[in-house]
């Protein structure tokens, strides 16, 4: 239990401390130290959960089970590796004058604050607190998106703020409706928003209210997931903020919104009895997947490119969760991990790439392999992994997903596969021009620490070749929770 609190308190302490000293030159290191400590705590937490099973805090405020423990671990890990990248990256930004000391303080404090809100969102048992945390995550990052104070970044920040604010407000309404339905089942109880309680009684709630609630939840959290047509904030926010933020946004925040959505789906499915929620998620998933795939073809900014790819992958996961069934769900859960790892690795690489080329514009990035082979190859390999080629983990999860689709609704496979091909073409047509060929005059290598990227890619490779037993166990338990049946 202590480790759970540590996992949450460390980022809190980090936020407060860095709010004071964030402008110092050592702040990057302090940031890193806090993330390392958080990661260590989360590892101990995971071991504890592995040994003892589900963990419920005394006040029933926190609840760690197989579904969120690995996400907590993933969060802490990506938070740490991104912090490794963040230090030198932001130092470079400071040096070239894109940010000043005050903003560095904001940045570092909010980095920790962001991690805190995400960890709270994952570990909380209270659905209301979940909402508060997700909204908090928006608020923590909104100023980071406009950190550079360029007209574009301000615009992106404003859009992010308004669209997500309006969206997430719908989720609150949905939560209120769930609470309303739960109150009737558990009258006068203070526990009507506790997931651990509701999950037991889900079948008894009023289906009409829950259906209504799910629509709002879907719109609300769906906005944060980046489902088309609620996604418009996403490419802007991801492309204009500092790159470490993009890595975390894309790699983690989207996952958390999806996590919230799935938690609610788990409550709503038994009550409604039909697969209405699932169908809606499938529809949104497929639409996002297709549209994002097409949009990839028209990108001119490398970070926008990868944020659309995030939409695409989130669409795929949403589709999979909507599809239901053990295999698709297992695939989607696995996809959450591998996508996070790959995508954050890619954004970290993109950060280095933009330093090499001095620009985020795809037109200006050329000959990376020539100038700096390690960056070029990491970039290329990470994209290959992202496109779902084996032996990387994304292949495994997509394999599961497609075969599951083939089994339950074969005709949907056609748009799914054509979408995948379209998206792949969209990624690679840009990719090739950036990494291959001759470098432009005067392009020189930069100092880059690629170990976070390599670590992520190795993890993804490992997950593609063989998934460790403990993870399989968790994923399977989570699958059982989500759809009632495991794959093993």
């Amino acid at each position, binding site marked *: 239990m202590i480790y759970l609190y540590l996992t949450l308190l460390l980022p809190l302490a980090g936020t407060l401390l860095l709010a004071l000293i964030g402008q110092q030159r050592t702040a990057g290191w302090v940031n890193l130290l806090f993330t390392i400590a958080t990661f260590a705590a989360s590892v101990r937490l995971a071991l504890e959960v592995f040994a003892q099973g589900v963990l419920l805090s005394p006040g029933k405020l926190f609840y760690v089970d197989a579904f969120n423990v690995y996400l907590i671990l993933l969060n802490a890990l990506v938070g740490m590796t991104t912090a490794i990248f963040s230090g030198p990256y932001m130092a470079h930004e400071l040096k070239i004058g894109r940010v000043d000391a005050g903003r560095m303080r904001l940045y570092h404090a909010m980095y920790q604050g962001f991690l805190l809100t995400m960890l709270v969102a994952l570990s909380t048992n209270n659905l209301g607190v979940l909402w508060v945390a997700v*909204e908090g995550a928006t608020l923590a990052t909104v100023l980071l998106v406009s950190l550079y104070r360029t*007209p574009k970044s301000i615009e992106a920040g404003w859009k992010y703020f308004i669209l997500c604010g309006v969206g997430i407000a719908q989720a609150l309404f949905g939560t209120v409706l769930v609470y309303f339905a739960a109150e009737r089942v558990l009258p006068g109880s203070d526990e009507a*928003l506790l997931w651990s309680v509701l999950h037991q009684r889900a079948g008894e709630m009023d289906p009409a209210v829950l259906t*209504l609630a799910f629509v709002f939840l879907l719109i609300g959290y769906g906005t944060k997931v980046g489902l088309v047509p609620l996604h418009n904030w996403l490419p802007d926010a991801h492309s204009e903020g500092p790159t470490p933020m993009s890595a975390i946004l894309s790699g983690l925040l989207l996952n958390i919104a999806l996590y919230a959505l799935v938690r609610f789906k788990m409550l709503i499915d038994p009550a409604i009895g039909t697969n209405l929620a699932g169908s809606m998620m499938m529809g949104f998933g497929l639409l996002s997947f297709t549209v994002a795939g097409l949009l990839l073809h028209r990108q001119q900014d490398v970070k926008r490119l990868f944020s659309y790819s995030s939409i695409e992958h989130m669409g795929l996961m949403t589709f999979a969760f909507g599809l239901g069934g053990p295999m698709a769900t297992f695939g989607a859960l696995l996809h959450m991990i591998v996508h996070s790892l790959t995508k954050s690795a890619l954004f970290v690489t993109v950060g280095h790439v933009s330093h090499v080329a001095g620009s985020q514009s795809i037109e200006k990035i050329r000959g990376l392999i020539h100038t700096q082979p390690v960056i070029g190859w990491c970039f290329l390999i990470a994209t290959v992994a992202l496109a779902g080629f084996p032996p990387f983990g994304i292949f495994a999860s997509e394999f599961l997903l497609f075969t599951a689709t083939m089994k339950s609704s074969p005709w949907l496979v056609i748009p799914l596969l054509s979408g995948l091909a379209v998206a792949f073409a969209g990624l690679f047509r840009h990719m090739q021009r950036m990494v291959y060929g001759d470098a432009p005059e005067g392009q020189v290598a930069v100092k880059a620490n690629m170990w976070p990227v390599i670590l992520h890619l190795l993890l993804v490779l490992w997950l593609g070749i063989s998934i460790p037993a403990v993870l399989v166990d968790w994923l399977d338990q989570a699958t059982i929770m989500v759809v009632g049946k495991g794959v093993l």
Partner: protein
Amino acid sequence: MILSGLPLAEQVILTLASLILFTSFLLLAQSRLFGLINTFAWQGVLLFLATIMMAATYDRHHLYISAALTLGLKVFFIPWQLRRMVVRLDIFRQVETVVGGSLLVMIGAGVLVLFSYYVVLPIRELALLSIRNTIAVSLAVILIGMLMIITRRKAVAQVIGFMSMENGLFFSAIVSTSGMPMVVELGVAFDVLVAAILFGIFFFQIRAGIGSLDVDHLNRLREGDQ
């Protein structure tokens, strides 16, 4: 539903609900920024009254805290802050026009109210209070708030629309379930507070970066051939 069959408290709540809905319409129609802010503050007052009403009727003590928060945030702090902004940004003279013509928007809002009622119809009425109808009203407030954000060009007006959505949400929580658990209430209030502050920061950023608070000028980030 026969009004006379209801206890007085509930009659008062229903009246407040209709008044809140009315303020939403007013917000939609207002073209002066100060007018908007004032109307918004009045909506907060109504919300505050409704909360007190619920707290007294059902003896929910934690609702008094909510009521206090509402009073502090929605009636005093946010309107005060917005007013200060408007003055400092020197935009209080500007007239805010409604995109698409205010009559059309009003009709649209009316349709939204009907739609909200239609949407909540399937909910079975179990509780004593005519909750379903108040939920319909709060849903209508939310939707109208959204409509307002869509039809207003000025960032400040959008913020007020957003906050009025929040009011609708809050109202629904109050009337349907007598308020959320305390921890959630506090969290939501904290989020609203932070959001209000952030909005203020953003006004200055937008003003500095783009030169106008007209959100239609925020169109640098788009796809296609630029």
